[in-house]
């Protein structure tokens, strides 16, 4: 027995020794041998990339065919579009045409989406618009979480809201606000996308009427509109929507309450001074001065659930607004009496108002303040319930005292704007004047870290960072100025999106992405697998506006030209590499209506239809029916061709529109 133990000890010892040798040789071998990563190190050294930079590069690089984990929808600013960006690679995937004609997508050229661009309820002035200042995209939500079905975005310049269907990433509807010409805090959705919130910005006489500035207090009004969204139809229904009349302060951003604050919406305001500007030669202060006199402005607390009840009971009046379009409005006195609209003071000239994931806290950033001011929904609810108000404003709206609603003021730096959240209880606030992202803890109300960004950060977005369940991982700083970050391209600089890794203890700036298309405002980042877009339309003969099979779908072999009086109907097909019919003869003055069905089923087999001289270019995606309508009033022979490089015989995919001159 003893012998065996001894022997086994000796053997074990030898075994350990050999194992040690083996491991040692492995380590030595790795150091000395020409390893596969040596070349990478050489490149890093040659480019003078420090280990941090190498690490950052590795976080964002995607080999070909590897897809991003997140998708960011960013406003395209004045381009009137939405930019779709992969995160973390920061690759631009698409510009979605929304308010601006866009030839590649055939948007504004196809007879059907031309109508979308004109709007559902737009007055003649706004029906003709060809641009917008898109501000805040909002992905549709279910139970306060992104569901990836729809995207909404507001146009600040013209008080419009657009609906984008995320099955095909195309704009389906534009609505105009009949109450005014500008918004800012749009679009924001309630937790089940019951409503899309659109507050006004610059107060005007309600309904687009005329009133001199001397009647500002009496006649000018703001509004907070709740657009009813019919998810099944995929459309806003103006008839089921309503607005809450607001004093002529300039309302700013909003956010919808969720979970504990469900049923409420919160909107900032400034110019509670009701400054009316400085006419030339007048001693009145400029807006920038006049609207910054009070130390406090008013956070608007809107109980939209209650508002819904009042509207159902007939408590709203019907206002005939701009262009004769009607909307239900809850008058200011009713809103005040029913506590649908309640105020609480907020540090002056605020910008963003953001509700925490649990719905308990409302964070306000005051542009000229150094704090993130945090309100408690519990305190607000208590005050409203007990009728504990410190007074009323000039219009009779009850005001909850600051001390009765505020929970904390977190000192984070000068010029806080917007706040997003992660999954570890941290909040990230963009701080404009200091050009930093401030990371602070919810509940602890303590600043943890500041990360400089380049430069003048406006909005900030985090992975699902404004939902009930943020993902953490990534934050994107949406910087207004790039200054020296990119190669100069003339005096107009791109904006700078900076990707920040927030997965570790410290924030790390990872990547700079230039945005050369308008000045984006807000962006939202959704987990890519929540989006289920079509890769081709579900059926051949699809009408993307109705999202159903089109009655004008044409099958191969059924192509035809029909004349009814002075109108020529062309039922055509497009397939690699020909249009049928490819010779179309009409007479001068005929109206030409063409339905072109792309009968392809292959991914990416899009055909264009470009008709010279007539300002027509369609994008007819696999399965889609393209629709053109024009009057052939110029006699001649007009070539048309497929403007997407579809196949080897792409150039041969062409035809002639022959417009015969009128007989005299």
């Amino acid at each position, binding site marked *: 027995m003893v012998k065996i133990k001894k022997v086994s000890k000796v053997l074990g010892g030898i075994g350990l020794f050999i194992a040690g040798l083996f491991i040692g040789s492995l380590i030595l071998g790795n150091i000395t041998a020409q390893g596969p990563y040596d070349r990478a190190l050489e490149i890093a050294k040659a480019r003078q990339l420090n280990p941090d930079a190498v690490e950052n590069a590795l976080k964002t690089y995607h080999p070909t065919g590897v897809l991003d984990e997140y998708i960011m929808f960013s406003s395209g600013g004045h381009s009137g579009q939405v930019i779709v960006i992969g995160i973390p690679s920061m690759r631009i995937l698409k510009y979605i045409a929304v308010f601006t004609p866009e030839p590649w997508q055939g948007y504004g050229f196809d007879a059907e989406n031309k109508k979308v661009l004109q709007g559902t309820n737009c007055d003649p002035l706004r029906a003709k618009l060809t641009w917008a200042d898109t501000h805040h995209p909002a992905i549709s939500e279910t139970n306060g979480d992104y569901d990836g079905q729809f995207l909404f975005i507001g146009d600040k310049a013209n008080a419009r809201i657009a609906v984008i269907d995320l099955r095909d990433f195309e704009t389906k509807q534009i609505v105009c606000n009949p109450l005014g010409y500008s918004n800012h805090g749009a679009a924001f959705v309630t937790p089940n996308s019951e409503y899309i919130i659109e507050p006004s910005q610059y107060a005007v006489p309600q309904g687009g009427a005329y009133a001199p500035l001397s009647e500002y207090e009496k006649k000018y009004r703001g509004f907070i509109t709740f657009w009813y969204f019919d998810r099944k139809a995929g459309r806003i229904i103006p008839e089921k929507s309503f607005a809450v009349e607001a004093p002529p302060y300039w309302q700013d951003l909003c956010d919808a309450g969720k979970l504990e604050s469900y049923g409420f919406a919160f909107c900032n305001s400034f110019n509670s001074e009701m400054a009316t500007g400085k006419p030339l030669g007048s001693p009145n202060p400029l807006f920038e001065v006049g609207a910054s006199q009070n130390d406090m402005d008013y956070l608007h607390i809107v109980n939209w659930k209650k508002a819904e009840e009042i509207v159902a009971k007939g408590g709203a009046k019907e206002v005939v607004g701009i262009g004769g379009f009607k909307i239900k409005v809850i008058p200011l006195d009713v809103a005040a009496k029913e506590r649908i609209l309640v105020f609480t003071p907020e540090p002056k000239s605020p910008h963003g108002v953001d509700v925490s994931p649990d719905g308990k806290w409302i964070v306000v950033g005051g542009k000229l303040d150094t704090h993130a001011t945090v309100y408690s929904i519990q305190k607000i609810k208590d005050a409203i319930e007990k009728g504990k108000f410190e007074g009323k404003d000039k219009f009779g709206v009850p005001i909850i005292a600051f001390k009765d609603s505020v929970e904390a003021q977190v000192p984070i730096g000068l010029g806080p704007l917007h706040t997003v959240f992660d999954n570890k209880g941290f909040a990230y606030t963009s701080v404009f004047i200091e050009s930093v992202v401030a990371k602070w803890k919810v509940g602890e109300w303590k600043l943890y870290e500041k990360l400089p960004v380049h430069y003048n950060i406006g909005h900030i977005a985090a992975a699902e960072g404004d939902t009930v369940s943020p993902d953490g991982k990534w934050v994107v700083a949406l910087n207004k100025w790039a200054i020296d970050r990119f190669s100069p391209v003339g005096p107009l600089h791109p904006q700078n999106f900076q990707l920040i890794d927030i997965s570790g203890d410290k924030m790390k700036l990872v990547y700079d992405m230039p945005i050369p298309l308008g000045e984006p405002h807000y962006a939202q980042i959704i987990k890519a697998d929540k989006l289920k877009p079509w890769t081709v339309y579900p059926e051949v003969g699809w009408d993307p506006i109705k999202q159903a099979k089109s009655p004008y779908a044409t099958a191969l072999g059924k192509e035809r030209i029909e004349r009814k009086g002075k109108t020529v109907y062309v039922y055509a097909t497009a*397939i*690699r590499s020909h249009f049928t019919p490819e010779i179309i003869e009409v007479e001068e003055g005929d109206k030409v209506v063409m339905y072109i069905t792309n*009968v*392809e*089923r*292959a991914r990416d087999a899009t055909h264009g239809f470009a008709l010279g001289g007539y300002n027509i270019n369609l994008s007819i995606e696999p399965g889609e029916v393209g629709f053109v309508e024009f009057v052939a009033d110029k006699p001649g022979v007009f070539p048309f061709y497929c403007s997407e490089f579809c196949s*080897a*015989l792409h150039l*041969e995919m062409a035809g002639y529109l022959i417009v015969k001159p009128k007989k005299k």
Partner: protein
Amino acid sequence: MGVLGKIENLIPGPMIQRNRRILVTLFAILSAVFILSSYFFPYWKFTLIAPQYPQGLRVQVYLSKLKGDVSELDILNHYIGMKKMEEAAQFERKIALFGIIVLSLFSLFFLFSGRKGAIFFVLPSLAFPLIFIGDLFFWMYRFGHELDPNAPIKITPFTPKILGEGIVAQFKTYATFGLGFYLAILGFIFVFLAFVLRIGVCNACPVKEKCSVFCPNLPKWPGKPEEFERAGMKEKALILRQQKVN
């Protein structure tokens, strides 16, 4: 009494070759099931591999229909002037369902067939897969040879491969038989096995001319000689008659 015993009760006739007769019946039914179900699975599959089709283009050929990326392949084929796939084997596809039902019924009819007729119910299921291959080849030949002379791309006529790897222009193709084809083969194998097994049953059946898997009831011994005569057992009848006389 076990399960086998219960099944056995369902089969009329004497207890000769009990297990074998059960097997023969089961095999014939399985054969019919395999043949019938083959209709619902592709008989032949074809994959075209090209850079712009990362997943490949796949077509499944059923007895009565084509499935998969047919329209995309048609688009590619039209450049070389090939006909649309839907135009192939239209008559065959029309009668396919009827044919497959008849074929599977044959496997059942076989059970009742006599000693001599049996093979005529077995041979069609052997012939069927061969006919399929022949017909496929025929259409492949026609499609590869009857090319539109005015097509944008002119190529020398060819017969696409019906099995294994082939190359058309720069495209690689890969063709295999599908589950349906193998089910049809299984259908033949099972009815053939039943046929072979049944020879033994027939040999054991006293009524040799009338052999089917259900060989006629044997009269009980000793019984009336007429019954034995009717069953074709003349010797036994003779013995009984002689006994009576004695």
